[in-house]
């Protein structure tokens, strides 16, 4: 076997800085695009992983977000529209020791590449999928996407979109994803924490990142980032902690059977003990959390959850594949090509 086939993942790059992971290429997103923050936070994460840059691969499809690999000083593939999860699957299955990242968008990952996305999630290869959701097509200049809200007026929906949008986290969970999380570009600290969780999870991690497209859909997520509204529109999840949000954490969420209910913690009727305690391993509750998905323009809705909604360790596809390869080698011993070629029955002509 040639030496390059096996990859050591020795954590030897401790002295590296985030900027060491920037490639020599000029970054070409629009000024003010949310992608810049995400790039910076991903670059900052890299030294922390302890993985040498030669053992990291970024794979993308097509779209604004998919230019990402060009800006990372790692290995990378800028593939074709929607197919990044499939390319990543082949690479990871063939080279399980690599740290493989998929960078995609709402159009790339949920529309043209939706099929690969759901199948990758159910197979659970150890991949990190970053889905930049800006609810619009940026690179093709402003058409509605599968996450655009009903009524959204875009260049291809002059009278407003009549497409019911995907709820990406319900989709990911429904596809049996083993790690389902949400963060946003405007909160770099949370983004950094979630990127780290994404990296550490062994299995397919699905991280939806709300990303502002300043040109074609500016402010789509403003209500979650504006100081005046964000306290009531967002809730930050922490494992083992009660669901609380609002100014001074005055609101909590309790479960009335399977019905989530917002309660006021300052009136004395309810205390922390009555609240829903977040459990990342609870698939059913995670399902409920993904359904906190009302249009944020409406008042009185449940807050949008950020953080890790669901995380479960289970076998990875490449792990099971390696097991089968090892079992086949055990069973058959040293492969004998002559025997294989001869098959079941031969005859000799003299």
């Amino acid at each position, binding site marked *: 076997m040639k030496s390059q086939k096996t990859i050591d993942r020795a954590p030897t790059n401790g002295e590296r800085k985030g900027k060491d992971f920037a490639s020599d290429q000029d970054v070409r997103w629009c000024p003010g695009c949310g992608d810049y923050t995400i790039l910076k936070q991903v670059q900052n994460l890299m030294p922390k992983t302890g993985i040498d840059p030669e053992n990291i691969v970024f794979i993308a499809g097509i779209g604004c977000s998919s230019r990402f690999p060009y800006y990372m000083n790692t*290995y990378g593939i800028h593939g074709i529209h929607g197919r990044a999860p499939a*390319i990543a699957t082949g690479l990871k299955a063939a080279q399980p020791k690599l740290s493989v990242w998929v960078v995609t968008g709402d159009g790339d990952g949920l529309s043209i590449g939706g099929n690969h996305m759901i199948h990758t999630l159910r197979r659970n290869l150890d991949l990190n999928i970053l889905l930049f959701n800006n609810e619009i097509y940026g690179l093709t200049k402003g058409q509605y996407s599968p996450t655009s809200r009903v009524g959204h007026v875009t260049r291809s929906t002059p009278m407003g979109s009549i497409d019911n949008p995907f709820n990406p986290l319900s989709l990911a969970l429904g596809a049996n994803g083993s790690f389902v999380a949400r963060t946003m570009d405007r909160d770099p600290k949370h983004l950094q924490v979630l990127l780290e969780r994404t990296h550490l999870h062994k299995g397919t991690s699905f991280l939806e990142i709300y990303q502002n497209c300043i040109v074609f859909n500016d402010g789509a997520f403003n209500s979650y980032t504006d100081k005046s509204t964000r306290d009531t529109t967002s809730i930050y999840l922490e494992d083992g902690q009660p669901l609380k949000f609002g100014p001074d954490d005055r609101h909590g969420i309790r479960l009335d059977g399977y019905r989530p209910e917002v309660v006021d913690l300052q009136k004395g009727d309810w205390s922390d003990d009555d609240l829903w305690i977040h459990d990342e391993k609870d698939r059913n509750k995670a399902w409920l959390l993904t359904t906190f998905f009302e249009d944020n323009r409406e008042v009185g809705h449940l807050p949008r959850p950020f953080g890790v909604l669901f995380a479960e360790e289970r076998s990875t596809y490449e792990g099971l594949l390696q097991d089968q390869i090892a079992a086949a080698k055990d069973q058959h011993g040293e492969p004998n090509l002559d025997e294989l070629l001869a098959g079941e029955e031969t005859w000799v002509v003299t």
Partner: protein
Amino acid sequence: MSIQQKFKKEVTIRFAGDSGDGIQLTGSQFTNTTALTGNDLSTFPDYPAEIRAPAGTVHGVSGFQIHFGSKAIYTPGDTCDVLIVMNAAALKANLQSLKSGGIIIANTDGFGKKDLSLAKYDPTATPLQDAKNSGYTVIEIDVTKMTRESLKETGLPPKDVDRCKNMFVLGVVYWLYSRPMESTIKFLNKKFSTKPIIAEANIKALKDGYTFGIATEIFSERYSVEAAPIDPGTYRNITGNDAVALAITAVANKSDLPVFLGSYPITPASDILHSLSRLKHFGVTTYQAEDEIAAITAAIGASFGGSLGVTTSSGPGIALKTESIALATMLELPLLIVNVQRAGPSTGLPTKTEQADLLQAFYGRAGECPIAILAASSPADCFDITYEACRIAVEHMIPVMLLTDGYIANGAEPWKLPKADELKPVTFQYQKPRENGQDKPSFRPYVRDENQVRPWAIPGTKGLMHRVGGLEKEHETGNISYDPDNHQMMITFREQKRDNIARFIPDQSMDEGGDSGKLLVIGWGSTYGSIKSAVYEAIEEGYEVSYTHLRYLSPFPKNLGDMLNRFDRILVPEINSGQLVKILRDQFLVPAEGYNRVRGVPFTVAELKDKIIEMCTS
């Protein structure tokens, strides 16, 4: 009455019956025994398209044809000398393939009122009598009754007894063609090793069928076919699909090169996936993807990681892969794409054969997208040509499309086993690691060698971090470039890289006939056997004609143009509406003429011979 023993140079037999009658097994047993007897042979199975077509109907008829002889055999035979039918539907579906005056061996129990009606014969019809009246020799045997009689002491339930009918018939045919029964007896003992009673019953039915041949007076003649002059060596019988799978495995094993197959089930290519999925211990990883696009893109991902990426499909699946083939062309990574062609367009006739994807292979992608194209000429040739396709993909860092088709994928012929020691490994070298460091200039992944081939730099290698993608690359650096001159240059490089392969493939040689003359027949793909036989017969009859068969289609062998120019007329038979003929005219400005039939079935030797003679005499 004494039975006459007659010697035959060649014979074609077709077994036909209901899907449940065990026809394929019967056919393959006859094939193995015939191979062991030393005859040359070629076979073709004819399955119903539906998995469980209604029993007794014409749709449910399964057939198996074998052509064997004491001379070289290149096709499964245009028409058969003997047709064995287990029921009325089998007769109805196959009578047109029987030579006039040929022999029908019929299981009369399959010709009852119900059978006639299921086969959509008129209730008062007497198809066997009609056949007799039309000059066929009809041998009627109540196989069901005879088998039940033979096995009445076994105590087996009637269902199991009736399952032995095919062995009774095989016994009769073994007697008729003077074949030994040992190989099949051995096979039955092995197949039913856990159910010795069933093995015994099948063997008894087989032997009693044979004895029935001796004892009864329904045959007036018995035949023998002498061994053919065959190259000494060890042989096995092989289908095209199996040969493809074995070659891919041999490349992995000999070259110490991991292979990754990404595939999605499709008729008639799925058997390659099945075979390779059992060979994990040989360094072959198989992955059944969610769709055709995922199958090929996963293979591309694996190639980026240092494996030979392979994807297998058929025409409609290949159409879905075209954008990905173009990606692999831009990434300049090794990739093998196997297209087991079937009759199209769209779903077409999935179980039937055609050669109509050649233009798709040449031109069916967006932009200027040169790839290498090879085609297999017979089931056994699938091994050699697949090995070649893998070699070219790796040594030239290029996608290679290998064309086979349903006819050679499922058809079988004897294959002289290569020795593993004598197979040449595919040569490759991953790019060596370099020191990391900001002060070092970035690695340049698109620096080319003298053959325009770029290095294979795989993740996990220190200092070679680089990005590839579908956007046009800058020469040498591989960075994105929109420069017009650079685009022209890269277009030219990719084309030259493909053309340079011609330096590393054998010159085109003549299969039959002289190096120059009035008429050259040129073929590609699975038509080899029929054209070869037709040209051979025409030459025997005194016509002046030459024949060459292409296995390398893109690039063509260097000397092909010269060869074509030495003939007055060029005939290009293809099972399509004229595809290679267009390319030859385009590239060589020669007056090539097509002979084209698109009926989902192979050419008959007879029709090709007629055409050749017509061209020789006009």
